[in-house]
């Protein structure tokens, strides 16, 4: 391993922090310098990301690569262990790209009260937290990065947010902290039961020795931490508030990357380390996931605020991701990872759009909008495109998060209640219709028709330069991943297979222990009768 290889991930994580520190040194008045530094930092970080992409050995994407493993906190045997595999890589790149795009997007529209210096510094700190979470291979390191994102986001919402920002900011903060407080208890339990280590790969190797009952308990702790971040029903109520009140860039980062921290946690930590706990929890997770799908969709139907609608749609979409995870199968987890990325691209894009619409019209109230296609056709069509992507139209990235999740629910991992999961599958499929419902209904009211009187005379800019630059990669990504899902699946699959292998049969052994016979056959008794 040459020098840069051992430094690449560290750079990817800490360059933004360095940039933030640099920005703090620049006087507040020289805004251009601040922006330039932020742009360069995010850009160089992305270049590092590109380099990582070239250095990554795709043939063995299941192996942890670019490993750095040095002592950190000896006393608790916690190490600075960062590395990435096929699951981390796409998310890390997503985080980098989103950060860069956010810097570009905010180039000349900083929300009130302006102050680019603080805003960009916070954004870069946020980036460090996000990047770090995706590469951390040590529970404590993971925890620190996982929490590191809270503060910047709190301030971002609170300072630059909408009218109800203070409530939203604290709510976001409290919820997440509540989850992570229980999560850290779970981590500690893993430490003591998993041979006094916080190292994730080691724990995966050791973890299955933990007794089933204990696994279930610990999984409960981790579940709280991750599920709130995801957010799963019924822990989702922070999300609409946070999204609605956050400034555009904040919403984008929140939706595109931060929600993934939770699902990533499930995939990276909770599932492989606690396979039997996962198997015991899976039906509940699946149930909450499909409730979330329907519930989020119904919530969307009731929204009058564009951003809030998109926020609720995240609840539904993350439901699909969680459903995939709950199946504990390779299909499901692949779908989940794909869902994370595609949701990142699509919902991130939707929030950009909502921000731009608000900037132009001064409102996000759906009822007051209308005829966007008349006044700003490009904006309108992009909105339509994203709505279509969001509702899971095949050919666009969203589909690959949804359909394989549904698919995998038909055949969950051995030992899980097949009938129940098939029920989930049907409910989730209904969710796709509801998704079409709320998105198109929103689209009809905002983009179709003719402009409302109050905005009739107003000159509305169509998409402008920085917006194009910031959006184009996302739009291209949505199409590219939609048409060539292999771009992503082939990266994630290796790693996912590893996880699926560790999960394989966990539910069965659990069942065997509890004396039940595993159910694993294709025949549905009901259908059998119907056929005759």
């Amino acid at each position: 391993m040459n020098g840069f290889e051992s430094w690449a991930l560290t750079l990817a994580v800490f360059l933004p922090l360095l940039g933030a520190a640099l920005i703090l040194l620049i006087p507040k008045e020289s805004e251009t310098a601040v922006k330039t530094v932020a742009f360069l930092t995010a850009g160089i970080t992305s270049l590092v990301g590109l380099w990582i992409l070239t250095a990554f050995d795709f043939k063995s994407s299941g192996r942890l690569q670019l490993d750095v493993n040095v002592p950190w906190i000896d006393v608790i045997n916690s190490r600075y262990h960062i590395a990435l595999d096929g699951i981390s890589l796409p998310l890390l790149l997503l985080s980098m790209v989103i950060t860069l795009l956010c810097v570009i997007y905010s180039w000349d529209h900083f929300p009130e009260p302006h102050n680019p210096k603080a805003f960009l510094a916070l954004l870069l700190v946020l980036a460090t937290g996000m990047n770090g979470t995706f590469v951390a291979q040590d529970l404590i390191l993971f925890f620190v990065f996982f929490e590191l994102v809270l503060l910047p986001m709190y301030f971002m919402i609170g300072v630059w947010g909408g009218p109800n920002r203070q409530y939203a900011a604290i709510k976001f903060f409290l919820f997440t902290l509540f989850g992570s407080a229980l999560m850290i208890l779970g981590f500690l339990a893993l430490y003591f039961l998993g041979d006094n280590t916080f190292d994730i790969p080691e724990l995966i190797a050791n973890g299955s020795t933990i007794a089933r009952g204990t696994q279930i308990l610990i999984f409960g702790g981790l579940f709280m931490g991750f599920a709130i971040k995801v957010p799963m029903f019924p822990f989702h109520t922070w999300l609409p508030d946070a999204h609605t009140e956050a400034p555009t860039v904040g919403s984008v980062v929140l939706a595109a990357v931060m929600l993934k921290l939770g699902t990533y946690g499930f995939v990276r930590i909770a599932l492989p380390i606690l396979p039997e706990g996962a198997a015991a929890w899976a039906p509940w997770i699946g149930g909450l996931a499909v409730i979330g799908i329907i519930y989020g969709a119904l919530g969307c139907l009731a929204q009058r605020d564009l951003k809030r609608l998109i926020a609720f749609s995240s609840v539904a979409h993350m439901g699909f991701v969680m459903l995939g995870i709950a199946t504990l199968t390779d299909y499901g987890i692949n779908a989940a990872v794909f869902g994370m990325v595609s949701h990142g691209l699509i919902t991130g894009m939707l929030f950009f759009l909502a921000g731009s619409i608000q900037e132009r019209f001064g409102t996000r109230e759906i009822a007051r909008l209308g005829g966007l296609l008349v006044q700003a056709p490009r904006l309108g069509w992009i909105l339509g495109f994203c709505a279509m992507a969001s509702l899971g139209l095949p050919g666009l990235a969203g589909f690959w998060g949804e359909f394989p999740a549904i698919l995998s629910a038909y055949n969950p991992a051995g030992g899980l209640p097949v009938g129940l999961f098939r029920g989930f599958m049907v409910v989730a499929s209904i969710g796709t219709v509801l998704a079409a419902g709320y998105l198109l209904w929103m689209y009809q009211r905002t983009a179709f028709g003719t402009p409302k009187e109050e905005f009739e005379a107003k000159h509305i800019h169509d998409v402008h330069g920085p917006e194009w630059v910031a959006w184009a990669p996302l739009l291209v990504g949505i199409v590219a991943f939609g048409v060539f899902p292999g771009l992503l699946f082939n990266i994630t699959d290796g790693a996912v297979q590893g996880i699926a292998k560790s999960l394989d049969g966990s539910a069965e052994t659990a069942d065997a222990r509890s004396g039940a016979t595993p159910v694993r056959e294709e025949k549905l008794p009901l259908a059998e009768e119907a056929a005759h």
Partner: protein
Amino acid sequence: MLENAWVIPALPVLSFFIILFFGKRLPKGGAWVGVAAVALAFGLSVVAVGQWISRPATLEVATHHGSEGEGQTVEGDDPAHGAAEGEHDAVREPVRREVTWFSNGPIDIKVGTHIDGLAVAMLFVVTTIAFAVHVFSTNYMADDVRITHYFAALSLFTAGMLVMVTASTTLLLLFGWEAMGLCSFMLIGHWWEKHENSSAALKAFFTTRTGDIGLLVGISILFFAAGQTFDIATLNEAALTGAISKGVLTVGAIALFCGVIGKSAQFPLHTWLPDAMAGPTPVSALIHAATMVVAGVYLVARVYGVFWEGFNIAAGGVNLGAVIGGVTVLIAALLAFVQTDIKRVLAYSTVSQLGYMVMALCVGAWTAGVFHLFTHAMFKGLLFLGSGSVSHAVHTFDMREMGGLRKFMPTTYKTFLVGSIALAGLPPLAGFWSKDEILTGASAGGFPIMFWMGVVGAGMTAAYMTRCVWLTFFGEYRGHGHPHESPAAITVPLIALAFLAAVAGFLNAPGVGLFGDWTNNAVTLAAGVEHHAFSPFIAVTSTLVAIAGIGLAALWYVRNAGPHGITERNAAARAGYTFLLNRYYLDHLYTDGIVGSIKGPIARAAYWINQNVIDGIVNGVGIAARKAGNFTYDILDQGMVDGAINGSAAAAGAGGGFLRTTQTGRVQQYAAVLFAATAIFAVVLIVVTI
């Protein structure tokens, strides 16, 4: 060409992107790019057809159960039949070409093309109609503000349909399927400034999406049932060889059929299709008559093995598909009577005809169903374009503002008439042959109910088309414009399609049977789908019924038209009138009692039920969803879930407030607490530790 069939869908994809990105800067908004791409695709499809026809039948297929014993054989000169005498039949081997799309562990998910007779036929149909529609649109839509978008969407649509028909896997099929849905949405809502249009677009999208629930579920079920593959050929084989249990097949087939119901506008999800007429007429011709709506039919034909086994078609009697198809035939036909909008008449007619196709497939008449799809595309595309031509002239679709147009627009009139007769099923035009085959299949396949439904439907079809033609082209012009014949870009496609509508039926006429031969494939053979011989009795019956329908309708409209006499104006009407008049003592009751009641109360009641109950349910579901949304959000989410959160926060605050009051500020009270706590804790501790 067969190996490189991917090029055919790729062309419109290419043109889509060209139009999307450069259309605005191209002359005519990029329309010609689309036309050129489709023309090329059409050409290539024709090449493909040629190559397919000339492909030797090399694939030996074991037949499931021989049809020879019953003496009902396919045409003698059928090369496929030559081998049917033995245990094996030979068919043309499908041309497959696949690449790995992505992998999931050991399972490679592939995409590719699967070209067989069905695919080739569909390629031909789609490119033909698409070409005609493209050409038609260059004029029809010339002045539209969004011609670029229009052509982009049209290109994308064509691509979607072509992808679907060539797809080798259910997954890729789903891609094309949904892409069409998207384009349908965009094109129905093309004039989105008006709320009704965008609502219609939404409705179409939702309704088909609702059906797609089943499709998604079905594909998932069959994916695992077939051993983790989306491959359709494997799936069919697995279904027919019994590798998949009957129960799973049944569930899978029902699930898939939900998708069919949505996409092919079968009862009860048919209500979106008439509304979809809000889109430009060429779109209606292409998407909502000839191609997209037959996607469901195509799906059934494509994964026939699943339906064959899942619906237990070989057993005859009734099954879900056949019932739905039959009911759709009748319901939609009934509804067509009361429409005043010419396009809506055609729309209901389309629904009805789709019912025929579905019914055909589900009574085991595979070839008939596919063939009807083929002929229907020709004459229904023609009829829609004809109606477009009419509206181009009179700027309305309301038949009450038309009348007498045959004088102003002779070409349109003639071609429309050809289409109508083909639709009505009068020999020797296309509709007759395909409809006849369906009826034969239903009768011989052991589906008497479906047979009679089909027969009644045939009569009704003839009747409502008579009404339509009458109101549009006969009588006095009731509008306010100055009708004129349309330009060549419009009439040429009409003529071309009229030609096809007239002659296409002969492809599978008794003694010709080419279509059946070309589309013959391993699946139907393995399933043991029987091809029933031409039955003169049925042919005559259906013809007579159709004529009766025409006659009765003509009679009705004569009576409505008043004493001036229809006979002077129209020969066909005169013939019908005379025919009816001779039997007037019977038919007085008949016309008033049956036709009248059909035309009047029953049709109206049916329409009312349709608009208020079925459509009401469809709309109601939407409203209910929104209501449920409001409830979920306002009561559950904001009230209870969030309320619990905020409530616990408030409780914490209140707890803090209460505890504050214990901090009285008086030092001796603090001291009292100190000592009291000491005393109490001490007692407790002693009790605990003793």
